[in-house]
């Protein structure tokens, strides 16, 4: 814990610097051995993904003749078929709605609760924090069967809301664990200055806290978004109607429906991972920071 916390303080001290520094001062080259090992590891990591993407550019007969070959000739028809149909776009829309609302809900509610936990003094504060923190330990798997019953009793089966609300609830622990230290790090002096200027605590929340905790907000937002975009178990239980499917369910349905059309399945699968990959490459630094933050607490 010591090392972790020390790491946090240090990084926060030079919080914005590394990115700037790396553009100015060029890093030295590493040794060839390091690059070689890194190359092998990266190849192992990336080849399966490339296989999925390239496979979509092949025809089924190509895949049957040589399962491990390159596209020859390249064939874009599989991708065009997927992109031209309404099924894929409907699922993209569903996934986007679910992920966006989940993100907004989890970050919004999480930020409010974190603010209370970080900056208010009241009895039961520790217990409240412990309650949320305990939720971190039990992912959705354990609660899924009764959760399904709760959602059904609320009449939310086959609706996106039935996925969104539980996802917000299960995203709250991570969000709160990450945000509380951010909010606690806001100097008391700023708060006092705001109060002296006649700002209420709620006004302080909306005017100052939101802005000052933005890095944490972005991190938790990304985590909630990607978690929702990839989630499988909950939609599997709640969404039984094709028109409400999110992408993970869609990929699975598609791959069993067109089980013989491997190339088409690969095209569908690779298209479905593009949004998450783009999102990730845009915010990679923040996600990495957020994950380490999540562990540090």
């Amino acid at each position, binding site marked *: *814990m*010591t*090392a*972790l*916390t020390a790491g946090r303080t*240090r*990084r926060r001290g030079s919080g914005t610097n590394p990115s700037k520094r790396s553009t100015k001062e060029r*890093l*030295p080259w*590493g040794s060839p051995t*390091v690059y070689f090992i890194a190359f092998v*590891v990266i190849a192992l990591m990336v080849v*399966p*993904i490339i*296989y*999925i993407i390239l*496979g979509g550019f092949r025809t089924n007969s190509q895949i049957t003749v040589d*399962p*491990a070959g390159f596209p020859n000739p390249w064939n874009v028809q599989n991708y065009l078929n997927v992109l031209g149909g309404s099924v894929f776009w409907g699922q993209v829309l569903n996934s986007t709605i679910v992920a966006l609302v989940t993100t907004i809900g989890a970050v919004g509610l*999480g930020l*409010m609760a974190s*603010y*209370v936990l970080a900056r*208010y*003094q009241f009895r039961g504060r*520790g217990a*409240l*924090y412990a309650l949320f*923190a305990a*939720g971190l*330990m*039990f992912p959705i798997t*354990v*609660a*899924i*069967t*009764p959760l399904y019953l709760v959602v059904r009793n609320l009449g939310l089966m086959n609706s996106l809301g039935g996925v969104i*609300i539980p996802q917000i*609830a*299960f995203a*709250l622990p991570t969000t709160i664990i990450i945000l509380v*230290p951010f909010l606690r790090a806001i100097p008391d002096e700023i708060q006092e200055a705001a109060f002296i200027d006649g700002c209420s*605590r709620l006004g302080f*929340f909306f005017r100052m806290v939101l802005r000052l905790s933005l890095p944490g907000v972005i991190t938790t937002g990304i985590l909630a978004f990607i978690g929702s975009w*990839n989630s*499988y*178990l909950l939609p599997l239980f709640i969404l039984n109607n094709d028109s409400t499917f999110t*992408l*993970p369910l869609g*990929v*699975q349905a598609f*791959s069993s429906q067109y089980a013989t059309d491997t190339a088409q399945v*690969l095209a569908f699968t690779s298209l479905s*991972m593009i949004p*998450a990959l783009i999102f*990730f490459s845009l915010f*990679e630094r923040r996600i*990495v920071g957020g994950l*380490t933050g999540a562990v540090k*607490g």
Partner: protein
Amino acid sequence: MSTTRETTRPGSVSTSDLAQHDGSGAKASLPSRPRRRGAGWSGRAEIALLAGPAVIVFLAFVILPVAMAAYYGFYRWAGYGPPTDFVGLQNYVVILTDPAFLQAIGHNAFIVVMSLVIQGPIAILLALLLNRRMRGQSIIRILIFVPYVISEVVVGTGWSLMLSTNGALNGMLHNLGLGSLAHDWLSDPNIAIWTLMGILTWKYVGFAVILFLAGLQGIPEELYEAAALDGASYWQMQRRITLPLLGPTLRIWAFLSIIGALQLFDLVYIIWGQYVASTAGTSTMATYMVANGRNAGNYGYGNAVAVVIFLISLVVALIYQRFVLRRDTAGALTERKTR
């Protein structure tokens, strides 16, 4: 760091953040800083207004379901109408004597141990490798992390196509003249669980690497400089400085890995499906729960399985907390002290 540890005074106890991550955290308290204002009447209204929505959603969709599972677990119940067929502990007796469930527990235990044994060393070596400042480090880090970001469904669909008997892996082995190494990777019961371990390693090792890199950043450079002056070799430094100081990160990663492995569901269910998973020897407690609860229309039983998984996870977590993470709590105290 060692000096801060010596200056700790007993009695300056504040529970570490991590100690609060477990169920026993009711007595945990946040490290408090002095406040000028207490919470007055309006303060309490603000607290309720701000924290209320999150608490309500959390109680209704996280805590309530767990409590409901405990209740329904005592009934034989198909999921419709109020449960009436009270069977006491019968569900639990059936679960704990069902060979299929005991096998699933065995698979989970295997996955817990092998995840630590396989991913830990690989991730430490990779993190050490990537911790040097060198050109291209950020792109390398991104690429290692990519499998972690991709959804389980995509991973499962892609890998099951690649690993099928006439899939890409066997095709590649034939192309390379290694046709004798081709296997039925997914359904041969002798191999399938190792296939699963390979896929799990591929998907989750990047997460461990990123965590360890963050931990490495917290180790003061001066320690290495001092050791180098004393003539320590690179590997001596890693053994004597890096590993001990990376300890807390390692222990937290192991904790997350264990909990994740105990609740493993998505990948197994997507690649093997509920029936094949049991014959291929990759079924887990969670796939057993879904197969015999919801898919069998036996919700009382499914809830009882959920309770068993919950209790197993809780016990493991508490034991881990008690015997492994305790040291880290001590470290956190000294850190707080120095601020």
